[in-house]
């Protein structure tokens, strides 16, 4: 140490010793030292500290400028201060008093010094990527002009950082950097620009998926903004800005227009279409789930009215070959609930984009993009729905395995729907019905319109409500059973069970009921032992009473209740309540009708009418559950050990 250094240190020490007790004297020491050793860092730094500790921002700025200009790259103390300064600048709104001082001091620095602080900070960051990025961001904030030339470097760093920690750097990119370069996007190499857009998209999608309180409209507005920005950087034809009100057709039309004027596989179409696809997909998924409607919805196969005369134009009893033919023409969506329309639109938009993106020109790039984005839960659901929409049953079955997050209720329903698509009711399908009925949701809901249509295949967005589910299951059974009416020698029990099922929707299936009553009337002998337990619908009871009365005149054995006769009775009935009720057989027959029997019949009718306020859907559901063995026998002509069927 030279004597000059010693003297210099002596004076600094003197100043330090007086810093607290007599700041003026301390400053006098430093002032003197500065005239003696103008190039000594320690002296200048002490001068700065004195002003800093006195909260004298203007003077501190003056000294800071001297150090920052003359002693860069040398002193740890200086960088400590620079870091304190930059971190204070970073969050100006929530600063400690100490940090506020730095902010004030910064304002007193000349722009040159301010700028050089950032430049030096950046060049001194070394391996500290995050700090470096922060410094860039700060510099762009304070010196917007620098963004034009320096932004590409910063964006490269962000892309670099995302490899290690996507969350942090995506947030920085989206929340901090993009707003800075928004007004004057820099020129960027296309690969990087695309990557940055993908990263931003990923960031917002995570936000949408993970944060329930996320304002999705805002998020989409931002996504479109970033898309525009990246498009600008790559010289793309501008797309439309986001607006919640804009119909998705408008976006689609614009996309088609761009598509026509672009070379095959062009990245602008790829990114616009992908964005549009995800937007529609999000709309679809959101509407399926509870977010937008009161209840969740599940896309299922609709029913087709069946008449023996005309048959079906498109039968549900497709042969596999027939299925392929029919799949050429996509099904319609039935307007079952208020939200059906929106759901189907969102679905079709997503499907349209999906198809475009899976054409050969985009397929490779698109599948790469999909891998990068956290869309798996949405995509698997969408693809499954898409498969059943197009009637690709095998594919749907495969996709079923990917949907791990679903409830068993939804799963059962989807399997049922798949089975129905296949055509005839299967054991698996029937098992699903029982499962669904076993875990009905609490939400009551209401009966749906249009779940069965004439003539063409259609899809239904089934709300997960109690009544809608019962209706769907019931319909699945009746549409099967009703065909058996036209087979010769259908059993009494089949007619009775159908009547019980048809109670659910008294205004519908008039023709079918009429047909059943005709069959009953034609029979010389008829037994309806489920009457007292399950039939309470007034129209049916009235009709039965009428038949009973008219049949009395003829000499037929018309038995409305009583012991099971023939093979039509349930064989395993001993386990069910219905069977228990039938354990005490009562015969109200027309043969040898006496007054007693007539009174008994009347009281039975009265008793059933009195029950007309019971909840019919629950009754029907109970009927299916309790009488499932009989129903299985109707459908499959045997009584298989249902309990042992395991649904996968």
């Amino acid at each position, binding site marked *: 140490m030279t004597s000059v250094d010693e*003297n210099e240190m*002596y*004076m600094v020490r*003197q100043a330090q010793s007086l810093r607290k007790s*007599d700041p*003026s*004297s301390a*400053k*006098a*020491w430093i*002032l*003197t030292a500065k*005239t*003696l050793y103008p190039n000594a860092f320690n002296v200048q730094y002490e001068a700065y500290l004195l002003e800093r500790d006195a909260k004298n921002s203007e003077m501190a700025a003056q000294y800071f400028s001297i150090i920052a200009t003359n002693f860069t790259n040398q002193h740890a103390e200086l960088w400590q201060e620079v870091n304190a300064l930059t971190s204070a600048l970073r969050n100006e709104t929530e600063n400690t008093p100490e940090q506020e001082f730095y902010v004030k001091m910064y304002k007193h620095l000349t722009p040159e010094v301010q700028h050089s602080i950032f430049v030096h900070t950046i060049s001194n960051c070394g391996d500290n990527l995050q700090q470096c990025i922060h410094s860039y961001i700060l510099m762009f904030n304070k010196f917007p002009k620098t963004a034009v030339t320096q932004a590409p470097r910063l964006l490269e760093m962000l892309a670099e950082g995302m490899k290690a920690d996507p969350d942090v750097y995506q947030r920085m990119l989206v929340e901090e950097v993009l707003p800075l370069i928004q007004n004057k996007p820099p020129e960027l190499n296309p690969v990087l620009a695309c990557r940055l857009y993908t990263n931003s998209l990923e960031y917002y999608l995570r936000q949408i998926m993970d944060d329930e309180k996320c304002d999705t409209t805002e998020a989409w507005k931002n996504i479109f903004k970033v898309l525009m920005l990246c498009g600008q950087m790559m010289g793309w034809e501008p797309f439309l800005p986001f607006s919640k009100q804009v119909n998705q057709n408008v976006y689609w039309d614009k996309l088609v227009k761009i598509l026509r004027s672009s070379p095959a596989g062009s990245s602008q179409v790829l990114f616009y279409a992908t964005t549009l696809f995800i937007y529609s997909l999000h709309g679809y998924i959101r509407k399926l789930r509870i977010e937008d409607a009161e209840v969740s919805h599940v896309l299922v196969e609709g029913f087709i009215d069946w008449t023996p005369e005309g048959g079906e134009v498109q039968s549900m009893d497709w042969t596999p070959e027939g299925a392929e033919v029919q799949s050429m023409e996509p099904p319609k969506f039935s307007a079952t609930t208020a939200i059906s329309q929106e759901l189907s639109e969102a679905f079709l938009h997503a499907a349209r984009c999906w198809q475009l993106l899976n054409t050969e020109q985009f397929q490779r790039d698109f599948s790469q993009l999909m891998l990068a984005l956290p869309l798996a839960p949405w995509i698997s659901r969408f693809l499954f729905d898409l498969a059943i929409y197009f009637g690709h049953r095998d594919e749907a079955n495969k996709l079923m395995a990917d949907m791990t997050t679903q409830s068993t209720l939804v799963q059962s329903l989807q399997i049922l729907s798949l089975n129905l698509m296949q055509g005839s009711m299967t054991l698996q399908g029937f098992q699903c019905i029982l499962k669904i009925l076993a875990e009905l949701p609490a939400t009551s809901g209401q009966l749906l319109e249009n779940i069965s249509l004439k003539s063409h295949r259609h899809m239904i967005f089934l709300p997960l409500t109690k009544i809608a589910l019962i209706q769907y299951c019931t319909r699945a059974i009746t549409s099967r059973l009703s065909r058996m009416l036209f087979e010769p020698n259908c059993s009494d029990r089949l007619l009775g069970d159908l009547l019980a099922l048809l109670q659910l929707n008294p205004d519908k299936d008039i023709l079918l009921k009429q047909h059943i009553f005709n069959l009953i009337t034609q029979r010389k002998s008829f037994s309806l032992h489920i009457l007292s337990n399950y039939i309470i619908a007034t129209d049916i009871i009235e009709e039965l009473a009428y038949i009973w009365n008219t049949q009395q005149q003829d000499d037929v054995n018309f038995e409305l209740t009583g012991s099971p006769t023939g093979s039509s009775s349930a064989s395993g009935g001993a386990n069910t309540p219905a069977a228990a009720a039938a354990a005490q057989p009562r015969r109200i027959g027309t043969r040898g009708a006496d007054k007693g029997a007539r009174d008994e019949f009347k009281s039975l009718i009265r008793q059933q009418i009195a029950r007309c306020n019971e909840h019919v859907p629950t009754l029907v559901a109970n009927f299916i559950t309790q009488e499932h063995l009989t129903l299985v026998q109707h459908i499959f002509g045997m009584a298989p050990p249902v309990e042992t069927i395991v649904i996968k």
Partner: protein
Amino acid sequence: MCAVEALTRLETLIASRNKQNLAMQIISEFIFLERAKDGDVRKMQTVGGISQMNIYQEFQLILALIDYFSRPGRDDTRNAIFLSLFGSHLTPQRSRLLSRLISTAVSGSVAPLLSSAGTWMQQVGCKTQPSLEVAQNIVSDFISFSRKTPEQLRHLPLVGPHFAANFMVAVADLYLNEKRGGVLTPPPDALLDVITEWTTENPQLCQAPQQPLVLPAGAIAMPFATPLAGLLRWVVLAPLVSNRQAYSNLHLSLLHTLLKTVNNGESTPLHAQDLMQIVTSLQKYCAHLAETKVAPEEDAAYLKCMERFAQAVQIALSSNYITNHIQLLCVLETLPHHALMKIVLAAHKKL
């Protein structure tokens, strides 16, 4: 009332040099209402007449003068009249009147009058008896008899910077000056505070007298003295009598002044002689220490004095602010050892 008219007449008289005597006569007779014992006008100017003014008349005259100087007019005329009214040799009555007039001007912030008074002070010399009396009187009026320093005094550098600077020169001479009674009398605290405030907030104040004076034709401008020399003596010698923090502040403020007024050849430098007085006082103190067998190097007061002295010398030298500095350095070397002083001396001997 005749004074008002007289003042107007004086304006024209003073413009012509050969009517000086008449002007003086008018001043004596109609303004100060003086009567010579023997009626000799010429004698009156030197010896002074005996005024017959009563307190009420004095009061009226002050008002008339304030009023006159407040009117718009040329600076040189005003300065000429002021100098004619109050020369360098004043009768006790005129001196008393002058003090009152200036105190009144300070309280009333009468800028033109204070400007003339500043010129007057410089012309008669800030350290001459009349100036010192005026300064002493301001201290009495505004510091000693006032519980709180009046705003008017605190703002004096803004109203009359020239006057304030000259006032500082004078008042600096009044305190901590061994030439006055052989003892170091510290200034009143309030005065010290005011001076510190002035110099801190108006770093150029100590150079205020540097502005050229506006004088009547033919008059020779007197050189001005900077208050720095006297104030430096205050802060350097203060540790011998007081521990007040205010001296540190004033010291720092003076250092800033020294640092900022780098000598460009125009500003008044510090003369080595001005600082010699400090050396003398310190030597005397060391002699006193020697009597009580205390080494100066172990005496806190001495060390503090030297600390400030060395700092001031260093900064003044670095600003090229001291004339004849070789002589000063030689004298400083004779003082008992002080680390910083040694560094400073070493630094400048090399040059």
